[in-house]
């Protein structure tokens, strides 16, 4: 651990703090590519983050997440908020390639410095966001964006990782997604702080909203946040300011209830454990690769002489041995 005076700000970090958009874009790419040379800049910018409202937009394929995102962007710009957007799309499991199409729906005046939009391929990461999403949100935060909107991959029932990134999670649904038992299932519907029933001009919107409202009234302790249900439609736009007010109400609740601090602490714990796991993984794999004793252990597992649990114990013991 380095306990000397703090190092001067790395150049990339200084440029980001000065508002250099290309430097920010470059840094995000390097974070996506897991380029370790930018770690000093990323570390230096950490202290400047923690100010933005981070809103996650998730929900099944085709419910209108991108269109809602576009309307929210317009609404927030009208309120003069600086807005960062991270839009995640899936990567092909076959080629690794990806089509990132969320920009098509996003409208903004050319040259508007108050907006920064970044598309991101999930690169095989499950859960609806990319590995680099959290770090990218943090960079946008340090860059000075006040609200950061994260649109997930069109999600399945268990793509709930956005809940670990956003301070407010909005689950977007449409009428007739399924019966009311669907909404009682675990997963996606549990993470909602706000429900957005989009395409509310379609028949069935009222009953969908009613089901969700009834469900959210169940099992919420007194004084705790009860998810709000907002009906929206995008052509013509309706319900967007109500949607933002519901998000803002949840943000206010996080502060007034004191739960923001706990949320933050819990997430950072998870993130740190993840980083440790990654490194331990790498060093264990390397040890297993090059240590002939451990290779012999592996041979015995393959020969069914010892079991994988025993082998794991030995591997752990081996890397714990002081060098």
């Amino acid at each position, binding site marked *: 651990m380095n306990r000397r005076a703090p190092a001067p700000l790395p150049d990339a970090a200084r440029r980001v703090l000065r508002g250099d958009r*290309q430097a920010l874009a470059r840094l995000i790419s390097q974070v996506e590519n897991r380029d370790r040379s930018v770690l000093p800049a990323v570390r230096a910018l950490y202290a400047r983050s923690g100010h933005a409202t981070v809103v996650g937009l998730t929900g099944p394929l085709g419910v209108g997440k991108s269109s809602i995102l576009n309307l929210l962007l317009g609404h927030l710009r009208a309120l003069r908020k600086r807005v960062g957007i991270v839009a995640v799309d899936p990567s092909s499991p076959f080629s690794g*390639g990806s089509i990132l199409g969320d920009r098509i729906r996003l409208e903004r005046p050319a040259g508007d410095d108050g907006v920064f939009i*970044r598309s991101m391929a999930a690169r095989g990461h499950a859960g609806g966001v990319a590995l680099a999403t959290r770090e990218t949100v943090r960079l946008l935060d340090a860059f000075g964006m006040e609200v950061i909107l994260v649109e997930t991959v069109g999600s399945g029932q268990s793509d709930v990782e956005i809940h670990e990134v956003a301070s407010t999670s909005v689950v977007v649904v449409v009428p007739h997604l399924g019966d009311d038992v669907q909404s009682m299932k675990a997963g996606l519907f549990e993470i909602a702080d706000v429900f957005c029933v989009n395409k509310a001009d379609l028949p069935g919107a009222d009953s969908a909203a009613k089901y969700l409202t009834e469900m959210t009234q169940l099992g919420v302790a007194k004084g705790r946040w009860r998810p709000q249900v907002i009906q929206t439609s995008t052509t013509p736009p309706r319900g967007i300011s109500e949607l933002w007010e519901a998000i803002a109400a949840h943000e206010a609740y996080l502060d007034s209830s004191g739960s923001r601090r706990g949320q933050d602490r819990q997430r950072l714990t998870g993130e740190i454990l993840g980083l440790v796991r990654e490194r331990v993984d790498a060093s264990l794999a390397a040890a297993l690769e090059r240590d002939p004793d451990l290779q012999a252990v592996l041979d015995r597992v393959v020969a069914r002489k010892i079991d994988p649990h025993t082998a794991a114990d030995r591997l752990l013991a081996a890397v714990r041995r002081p060098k």
Partner: protein
Amino acid sequence: MLIAKPGLDGHDRGAKVVARALRDAGMEVIYAGLRQTPEEIVESALEEDVRLIGLSILSGAHMALFPRVLALLKQKRATRIRVFAGGIIPDEDAKRLKKMGIRAIFGPGASLDEIVATARKIAGPSRT
């Protein structure tokens, strides 16, 4: 890379087919869609930190729009981002555009394999 259609024509089948082929070749393709101004295209390319911009055009306005994209990239000190194009572009114009800095131009009948191979070559090796 970024695929965009500058100007006013509304036919994006070709751009989509090419985007799809590049995806299948393992690239991350940002599809910016129809009716983009050169300003919007360059702004998107900078935010996304792409290595390559592919412009698709059928309207005949390429001699106005492509040089503008190149000029904006220069103005933003982003000439590291390379540009190629496809669409209905007469040979004479193609020659002049290549002189200005458009790296490759594909007309009707170009094969997807050819486009993918060229895009890969122009993009160069990964920077990181």
